[in-house]
């Protein structure tokens, strides 16, 4: 899915806050992975189908030497795919902004907790 695989490091003495934050991050990460993996797979598959069909129309097989679509021909596919997936993206965007912003609060709490622990617990 082109997202960098993240291993969430679990520190030895993880606090409750840190645990909650880590789980939130993991959940968002997994959700992102699922969306993009699925989305990209569909993109490449639909692109392949499009190329095949176009080449058929031009009566060429996929393996022949001249079997390549021009950028202009491909751009039909790019536009169609983008337009078709607009509602999907609109929903994803809304959810992503929500999840992304929501993660800032526990992140901040964890940060404060770390400072507090460093200053007062020794």
């Amino acid at each position: 899915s082109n997202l960098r695989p993240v291993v969430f490091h679990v520190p030895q003495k993880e606090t409750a806050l840190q645990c909650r934050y880590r789980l939130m991050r993991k959940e968002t990460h997994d959700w992102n992975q699922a969306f993009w993996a699925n989305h990209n797979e569909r993109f490449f598959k639909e692109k392949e189908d499009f190329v095949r069909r176009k080449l058929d129309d031009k009566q060429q097989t996929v393996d022949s030497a001249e079997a390549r679509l021009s950028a202009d021909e491909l751009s039909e596919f790019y536009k169609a795919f983008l337009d078709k997936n607009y509602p999907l993206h609109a929903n994803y965007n809304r959810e992503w902004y929500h999840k992304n912003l929501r993660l800032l609060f526990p992140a901040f709490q964890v940060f404060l907790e770390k400072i507090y622990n460093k200053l007062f617990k020794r």
Partner: protein
Amino acid sequence: MKTDNNKLMQYYFRLSKIRLTGLVVLTAMAGYAMAPAAFDPIGFTMVTLGTGLTSASANAINQFFEVPFDSQMNRTKNRVLVRGYLSPLHAVTFAAVSGSVGLVVLALGANPLTAALGAFNLGLYTLVYTPMKRHTILNTWVGSVVGAVPPLMGWAACTGSLDPGAWIMAAIMFCWQFPHFNALSWNLRPDYSRAGYRMMSVVDPNLCKRVALRHTVGITGLCFLAPVAGLTTPLFPVMSLPLNLYFTYLGWKFYQQGDSSSSRSLFRFSLLHIPLLILLMIVNKPSRKNDSKDSGKESVTVVQSELT
């Protein structure tokens, strides 16, 4: 992932899109240079610094919002947040600090008008342009306004107001964005399509080419308006004509051929075109008899009071 603190400065530069921020600062400096009031080294430094910080903040927020999309596209997949070199909280904090410091520097070091323009642009870029990229091709027009504001900021920092010359400069910058961006986006169509960005190059390729060409012609025309607005001497449109005509020629080629080589030529030349044009502007700045510190400001206030 722990943040590598030795590389912190490097990460901040990348987060602020330092090359883009540098160009933004350059256009603000140009606005200051062209403004018809005395050169004040402190004011100049402050608007430069303030604009740089505000731009850095805007770019950091943009990257914070766009992590999963940046990771999908080749051009942006090595960004700092995509690779996890900084945490999102860190990036947002950086943005908050540099943005607020930047705006304060603009307000106190220059004037409130400059800060207001900076704040407006910061909001426009992060809260309008960035989300809009995923909904409508109109985002490019909004983004072009964002590119046109920095010279206004530089000008406002110098004279305290926005004269017709400032608007001509801003209009030229606005027009320039189209050949620049449309050409860049031409070869990124597969990535934009997959990542879900709605750009002219994907949604309406013919419009993309038309708009790019149209605005190269626009720039050429605006340069003839520059002496009328008092921005430059009449020599400027003559001197800049070869530059603008070549730019238009490349725009025409892009319009006709619409392929990767013509788009790349147009994009590359756009990077050369604007610094050269700005240089020509500065060289052809009209000399004013009273261009000393006090009388310069005096004549500005006299004109202002006559207009009100």
